[in-house]
C-alpha cells in the first residue's frame, strides 16, 4: 500500500512540475509572437547608440551591444574584485575585534556589526552615494596628492575612481565586512579553549598565538561561510543600478528598454552570473581542499 501511495505522490509532483514548465514556455512563446521579434541574438552586433560614463576599454555609441555588455561585465568584475578584497580585510579586523579582550574595541565592533547588518543594503548604497560622496566638499581629503576624496570620487596614487564606483565599492565592502566579521568570529570561537591556554602558558603573545595557533585551526570553519558571503557580494553588486553605476545589470536594463529583447538579455545575464558564481565556488572549494589536506591530522 505504502509503495503505491508514494508512487502516486511522486507522479503527481512530476505532472505538476511539467505543467508549470509548460505554462511558462507557453507564456514565453505568446510573448515572443506578440512582440514580433523572434528569438535570436543577431541584434547583439547592432550599434548600441548610448554612451557609458565608465569604461575600462574604449567605448562609443557606435559600438555594438555585445561590446557594451562586455564593458558592463568588466565594470561589474572590477567592483566585485575590489570589494571582495577590501571587505575581507575589513571583515578580519572586525571579527578579531569582536574576540578582543579590550572592552571598548569589542563594543565598537559589535555596534558596527549590529548597525550594518540590520539596515538594507540599498539604503546604505544611497547613503554612501548621495551623502558620502556627492555631499562632500570639493577639497574634502587631500593627503599630499596620494589620497584625494571629494565629489569627484576617490583618487589614490593617480588611480581615479568615479563617485559611483567609490560609493558602490565602499557600500558593498562595508556591508559584506559585517557578515564576514561574524563568520571569522564564529571560526575563532570554534577553536577549543585549551588551545588558547596552551599558547598563553608557553609565553606566546596574543598576536603570535592568534596567527600561529588559533587562525590555522579556525580556517576550516571559516571558508564555507566566507564563500557564501562572496557569492552574496557578487549578486548584491547588481544594486549598482540604483546609484547609476554602469554594471552589467544596468547596461542590460538599458538594452532591454531599447530593443525589447528581455528574454535574450536575461538569459545572458543569468548564464554569466552563474558562470561567475560557479567560478567563485570552485576557487573557494580548491582553497578549502588545500587547507583540509594540511589539516588531515586534526581529528
Amino acid at each position: 500500500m505504502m509503495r503505491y501511495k508514494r508512487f502516486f505522490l511522486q507522479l503527481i509532483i512530476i505532472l505538476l512540475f511539467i505543467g508549470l514548465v509548460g505554462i511558462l514556455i507557453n507564456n514565453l512563446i505568446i510573448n515572443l509572437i506578440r512582440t514580433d521579434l523572434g528569438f535570436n541574438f543577431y541584434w547583439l552586433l547592432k550599434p548600441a547608440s548610448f554612451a557609458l560614463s565608465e569604461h575600462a576599454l574604449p567605448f562609443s555609441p557606435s559600438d555594438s551591444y555585445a561590446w557594451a555588455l562586455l564593458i558592463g561585465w568588466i565594470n561589474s568584475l572590477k567592483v566585485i574584485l575590489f570589494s571582495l578584497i577590501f571587505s575581507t580585510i575589513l571583515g578580519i579586523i572586525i571579527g578579531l575585534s569582536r574576540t578582543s579582550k579590550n572592552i571598548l574595541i569589542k563594543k565598537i565592533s559589535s555596534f558596527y556589526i549590529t548597525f550594518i547588518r540590520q539596515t538594507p543594503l540599498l539604503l546604505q548604497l544611497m547613503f554612501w552615494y548621495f551623502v558620502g560622496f556627492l555631499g562632500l566638499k570639493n577639497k574634502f581629503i587631500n593627503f599630499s596628492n596620494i589620497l584625494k576624496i571629494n565629489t569627484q570620487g576617490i583618487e589614490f596614487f593617480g588611480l581615479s575612481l568615479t563617485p559611483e564606483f567609490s560609493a558602490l565599492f565602499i557600500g558593498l565592502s562595508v556591508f559584506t565586512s559585517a557578515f564576514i566579521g561574524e563568520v571569522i568570529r564564529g571560526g575563532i570561537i570554534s577553536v577549543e579553549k585549551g588551545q588558547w591556554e596552551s599558547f598563553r602558558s608557553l609565553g606566546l603573545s596574543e598576536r603570535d598565538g592568534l596567527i600561529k595557533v588559533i587562525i590555522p585551526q579556525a580556517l576550516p570553519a571559516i571558508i564555507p561561510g566566507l564563500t557564501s558571503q562572496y557569492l552574496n557580494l557578487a549578486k548584491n553588486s547588481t544594486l549598482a543600478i540604483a546609484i547609476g553605476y554602469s554594471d552589467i545589470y544596468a547596461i542590460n536594463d538599458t538594452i532591454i528598454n531599447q530593443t525589447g529583447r528581455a528574454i535574450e538579455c536575461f538569459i545572458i545575464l543569468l548564464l554569466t552570473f552563474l558562470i561567475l558564481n560557479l567560478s567563485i565556488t570552485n576557487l573557494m572549494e580548491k582553497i578549502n581542499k588545500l587547507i583540509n589536506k594540511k589539516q588531515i591530522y586534526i581529528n
Partner: protein
Amino acid sequence: MNTIIKVKNISKSYSRGLLALDNVSLKVNQGKVLVIMGPSGSGKSTLIRTFNGLETFDAGEIEILGIKINQNYNERRIQKIRKRVGMVFQQFNLFPHLCILDNITLAPLNVQKRSRVEAEEYGMYLLSQMGISMHAEKYPSQLSGGEQQRVAIARTLALKPELLLFDEPTSALDPERINEVLDVMRKLAQDGMTMVVVTHEINFAKEVSDQILFMDSGKVIETSTPDIFFSNAKHERSRKFLNQLDK
C-alpha cells in the same frame, strides 16, 4: 634555600558568592615537589592555574620567581612569569595542526627568538629523552595519550623553565599508559626541577613529593610531608578522602 612560589592569603569567589579559593597560603622552595590533592571541585586546578595567570583571583598576593602579582591583572608581569614557568594540562592541548617537532619549537622560535637549527636540535634531544624521537614528524592525533603527554612535557621543557606546573597530567590516560608519564616526572624531580603537581596518584605522591597539600571547598585543610599524610593524616577530612581513594 630560594623560595620559588610564595602564596599569601589568596581568595577567589564565583558570582554566586561561592568561594573557589578561600584564604590559601603556601610556599615552595627550589628543587622541591609539592603535590596538591583533594576531591574534585576543591579548587586544586583553580589554585595551580593562578600561578601562571590563567586564572585571576580577588584578594591576596602571589610571588613566582620573585615576580609579584595581585588581583589587578598585570599582563606584562604575567607574561614574564609564563616565559619562565611551564605548564602541563590534563588534555595535553598539543597544537593539532603542527607536527610534533613544530609543537616543541614554536615557543623557542617565537618567544625566545632562538635559531631554527638550535631549537630543533634541542627539541630532538628532549624527544629522545622522552623516548619518542621517532615520532618527530608525526601529528598529535597519530600518537597515544601517553605519548602526547610526553610531547607536552617536552614542549614546556624546550623553554628551559625554572618551575613546572602539572594539572592532573595522568587523569585523561589509560591506566596502562599512566606510568610512562609518571616515570618522566620522577626523572625531572630527581634532576632537581621545582614542581607543583595536582594528581590523584597516591604512589607518585608518596615517592616523589616533599610536601602534600590537601584541599577541600577552596580551603587548605592540611599541609604535611607524605610520610605523615599517608600514615597518620592530621585532619579527619584528609583521612576520609584517603579511605575513599583506597577503595
